[in-house]
C-alpha cells in the first residue's frame, strides 16, 4: 500500500515546500534530536544563519507548546489520541523557511486558543515587544507548565503575521494548526 502512495506523499510534500515532517507523540528527547537535525539541515542548504536561529527557536517553542498541551491531558482517556495526533513540518516557500504544526485539541479548548492568538495577529512588532515584556514580568501561576510567552515569542520572530486554523473533526476534537513564516 505505502509503495503505491509514497510518490503521491512525496509530491504533496514537495508542493508545499516541506523539507522535514514528522508525526506522532513528542518527547523532550525527540524535540532535541529533531531540533539539532533541523538546524543542521537548514545550514546545509545555505539558509542564512539568522534565519536558521529563528527557525530553530520557533520550532522549539511550537513543539514544546504542543508537548505541554498534551501533558495537560495526561491521565485522561483522550491523552493518547491527542498525543499521537501531532504533526510538525519545516518547509521553505519563496526562500522563506516556515514551521507549521498541528494537533488535535479538545473542542472546549479551541476558544481559549483563538482568544490568545487573534490579538497577536494584528499587533505590530513594537506592540508584541511590549506585550512580551509585560508577560515576562508577571508572576507565573504555580500550576503553570509554561511562561505564557511562547506564542508571543513566535509572533515576534516571524516575519509575517501568524496563520492558524481550527477545524472541527468530530464531536470531541478540533484540529488546530499554526504556521509561522521566518
Amino acid at each position, binding site marked *: 500500500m505505502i509503495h503505491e502512495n509514497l510518490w503521491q506523499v512525496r509530491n504533496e510534500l514537495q508542493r508545499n515546500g516541506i523539507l522535514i515532517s514528522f508525526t506522532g507523540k513528542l518527547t*523532550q528527547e525527540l524535540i*532535541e534530536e529533531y*531540533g*539539532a537535525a533541523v538546524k543542521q539541515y537548514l545550514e546545509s542548504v545555505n539558509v542564512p*544563519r*539568522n534565519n536558521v*536561529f*529563528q527557525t*530553530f*527557536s520557533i520550532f*522549539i*517553542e511550537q513543539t*514544546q507548546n504542543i*508537548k505541554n498541551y498534551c501533558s495537560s491531558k495526561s491521565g485522561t482517556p483522550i491523552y493518547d489520541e491527542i498525543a499521537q495526533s501531532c504533526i510538525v513540518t519545516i518547509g521553505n516557500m519563496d526562500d522563506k523557511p516556515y514551521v507549521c504544526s498541528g494537533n488535535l485539541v479538545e473542542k472546549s479548548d479551541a476558544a481559549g486558543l483563538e482568544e490568545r492568538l487573534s490579538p497577536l495577529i494584528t499587533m505590530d512588532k513594537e506592540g508584541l*515587544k511590549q506585550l512580551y*515584556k509585560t508577560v*515576562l*514580568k508577571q508572576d*507565573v501561576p504555580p500550576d503553570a*507548565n*509554561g*511562561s505564557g*510567552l*511562547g506564542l*508571543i*515569542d513566535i509572533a515576534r*520572530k516571524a516575519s509575517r503575521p501568524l496563520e492558524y486554523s481550527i477545524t472541527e473533526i468530530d464531536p470531541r476534537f478540533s484540529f488546530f494548526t499554526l504556521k509561522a513564516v521566518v
Partner: protein
Amino acid sequence: MEPLIIPATNSTPQIHFDASLGKLVVKGQSYPENAFKFYEPVLAWTNDYLQHLQEQAVVTMELELPYINTSSTKCLMMLLEKFEAAHCAGKPVKVEWICNMDNESEYECAEEFQEDLTLPFEIIEKNSDV
C-alpha cells in the same frame, strides 16, 4: 558556601556558581522540558548567597546563552531580578553577557534585559567562531 555546579546537557546550560570567586556562570543552550524545575536550585542558591553577601568585592553573573527558550527566559528574569534587588540594596553586583553578535535573537534578548535593569550590565562580544 558550597559551590553549585551542574554540567551542561543538550538542553540545559552549565551552571558554575562559586561563592569564593564571586562568580556565577550560566553557559549554554537552555530549553529544558521543565525550566522551572531546572532553575529552582539555581534560584535558591542565588537567594541564599545574596542574602549573606558581606564582601566588598564585586559579584559577577556571567551569562552566555546562544539559545534560550521562553520558559528559561522567565527563569532568567527571576534570577536577574534577585541581582537587581541586591544592586538596589547597595551590594556590588554586575552582569556580563557574552554574546555572538551574528545571532540577532541572542543579542536582542541580552539587550532587552539590559533595557529593563539598572544594575551594571555589560554586553560583551564573543570572539567569533571560538
